[in-house]
């Protein structure tokens, strides 16, 4: 079965602009297989079921749309948190700017260097979760990433890691087109927090494959912002073992086009998976959260909490699915997607999906769109809080349920601070 002509042409044009890294070692066969997946699937087109709300054109074009390089923010997010920084500049690891990766309970290897080494856990993971995540919904941009990633980092946590690893993405080149692939393995009982910050590149394609073993815990907080022209397609593929914990929160401010996909497979009993996002969109901003959580074990809990604040023509998209397989009894699934539309021009498109094949489960979902509650706004103003400030308070109030998903208080405070800062800078 061949691809439609338009899709074939677009896919070939993009593939012609890419080359596999010459140093590819043990990843080469995995990359070749991924390339075959891309060729079979074709890159996303507007008629694809999961791309109806988001135009993929700028994510699949041969060259990226140039993006202005902005001076770094005065107060970078997570600056006050004791963390281990791994810095990438336009998608290339910069050891000089990074911290010494030696930390108890942690093994860190740069992908570009790992290629020549025999790292068995990584060989069992690279492209593996991505491949599993291709069904039932194809994710060709992730396969493209597996085939052509130029860099990334391999992180293996063997114990409770005392401080977070911060992947810092710097953007210095207006036409950079970065493809990063990270592998993360959290061993039984280990506990790892990964933070991600920074604009990364003009166009950013990132895949993170996260394998959380039995009793492991993985916390992920990322802040996307300060990059008005950014186009990004990111994927997280996670596999969760028994009694493991996976919690991911994403803050998105600005960016022209962002598609964040999270694909989670709960394969061990009593697992916990929380995925949350808060986004602030202004003007020509398009933000898409596409989440797919599969329950394939007993007594697992999953939560999806996504909140979007949109104005002046900004568009928010949420496509969230909970799939409960036969036998995944006692599943507790929760999904909420809400938008706060600050004016008539803002758009929110939501597609919540539940597919359940077990009979003893509790799953709920909800999706709403609304304006700022006038009664609450009046209450604040009647106490003397000026209108603009009162509106900002209402925005933070709206986002609170998502932000509360961040467990670490210091990290949560930083996220709130950067939101408050954004709101103040964008006051009308």
């Amino acid at each position, binding site marked *: 079965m061949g691809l439609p002509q338009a899709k074939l042409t677009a896919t070939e044009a993009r593939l012609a602009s890419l080359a596999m890294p010459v140093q590819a070692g043990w990843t080469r066969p995995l990359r070749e297989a991924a390339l075959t997946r891309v060729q079979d699937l074709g890159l996303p087109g507007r008629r694809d079921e999961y791309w109806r709300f988001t135009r993929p054109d700028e994510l699949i074009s041969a060259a990226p749309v140039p993006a202005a390089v902005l001076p770094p923010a005065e107060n970078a997010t997570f600056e006050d948190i004791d963390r281990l920084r791994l810095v990438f500049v336009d998608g290339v690891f910069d050891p000089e700017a990074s911290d010494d990766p030696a930390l108890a309970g942690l093994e860190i290897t740069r992908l570009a260097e790992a290629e020549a080494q025999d790292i068995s856990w990584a060989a069992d993971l690279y492209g593996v979760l991505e491949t599993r995540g291709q069904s039932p919904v194809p994710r060709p941009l992730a396969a493209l990433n597996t085939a052509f990633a130029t860099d990334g980092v391999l992180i293996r946590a063997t114990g409770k890691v005392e401080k977070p690893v911060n992947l810092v993405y710097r953007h210095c080149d207006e036409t950079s087109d970065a493809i990063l692939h990270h592998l993360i393995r959290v061993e039984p009982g280990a506990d790892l927090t990964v933070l991600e910050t920074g604009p990364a590149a003009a166009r950013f394609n990132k895949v993170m494959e996260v394998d959380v073993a039995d009793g492991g815990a993985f916390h992920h907080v990322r802040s996307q912002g300060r990059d008005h022209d950014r186009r990004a397609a990111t994927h997280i593929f996670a596999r969760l073992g028994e009694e493991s914990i996976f919690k991911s929160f994403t803050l998105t401010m600005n960016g022209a086009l962002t598609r964040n996909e999270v694909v989670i497979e709960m394969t061990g009993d009593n697992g916990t998976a929380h995925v949350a996002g808060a986004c602030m969109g202004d003007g020509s901003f398009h933000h898409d959260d596409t989440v797919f959580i599969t329950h394939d074990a007993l007594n697992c809990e999953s939560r999806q909490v996504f909140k979007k604040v949109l104005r002046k023509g900004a568009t928010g998209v949420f496509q969230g699915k909970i799939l409960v397989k036969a036998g995944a009894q006692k599943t507790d699934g929760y999904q909420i997607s809400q938008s706060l539309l600050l004016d008539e021009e803002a758009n929110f498109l939501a597609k919540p999906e539940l597919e359940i094949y077990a009979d003893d489960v509790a799953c709920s979902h909800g999706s709403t769109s609304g304006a700022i*509650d*006038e*009664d*609450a706004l*009046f*209450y*604040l*103003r*009647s*106490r*003397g*809080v*000026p*209108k603009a*400030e*009162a509106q900002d*308070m*209402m925005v*933070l*109030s*709206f*986002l*609170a*349920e998502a*932000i*509360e998903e961040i467990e670490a208080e210091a990290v949560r405070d930083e996220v709130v601070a950067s939101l408050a800062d954004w709101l103040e800078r964008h006051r009308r």
Partner: protein
Amino acid sequence: MLEIKNLHASLEEEGKEILKGVNLTVEAGKVHAIMGPNGSGKSTLSYVLSGKGGYEVTDGSATLAGADLLAMEAEERAAAGLFLAFQYPVEIPGVGNMTFLRTAVNAQRKARGEEEMDAATFLKEVRAKAKDLKIDAEMLKRPVNMGFSGGEKKRNEILQMAMLEPKMCILDETDSGLDVDAMKLVADGVNALRAPDRGFLVITHYQRLLDHIVPDVVHIMAKGRIIKTGGPELALEVERNGYADILAEVA
């Protein structure tokens, strides 16, 4: 302190006139009560004075210490010294009670050109005032009015009033939803704030609140107007005979 002259106001959407010429003067240091049957316009009067949207003032004036209230935004009225204790205080998830209160105190100070209250002083004051109202530290930490009982919400209103130190306090059916003990606690809080330079307008259905907050003047409001004014004995008359006699008398 508060001077209302021939105030007419309508619902913006329906154009229905609710206030039909209210005349009322509350002097500094005095407590005035407004009683009246449902639908007489009591709550509307409080909203129009404090600047809630959805109402259109078609005639008349309202001034606070000589300043034209109706020309100001809600927050400017607050900074000018007006405070409305809500009948139904609003729950605001994700905004800490303390953060909100401190933002309000300092926003008002800033608007008046005064120096902001530093964190330590604020904390000290709020703790002392909360203690008087039996508001515990846990309640102060929670998001605004979230998980508060009816009585706790009303006490929180009085705490805000105590911190903001307004010139003119309007209490909109503060007794609704309160049991006797809670009402007494709230009344004690209000009485503690009575001062020679502060006026009160207490809106209530029932006389019982006025046993605890004893008014200097009682007004009866009906069909968008003040129809009768008297001393505290007027409230007792309402308690005994209801509004029917008074309504018939002025008709």
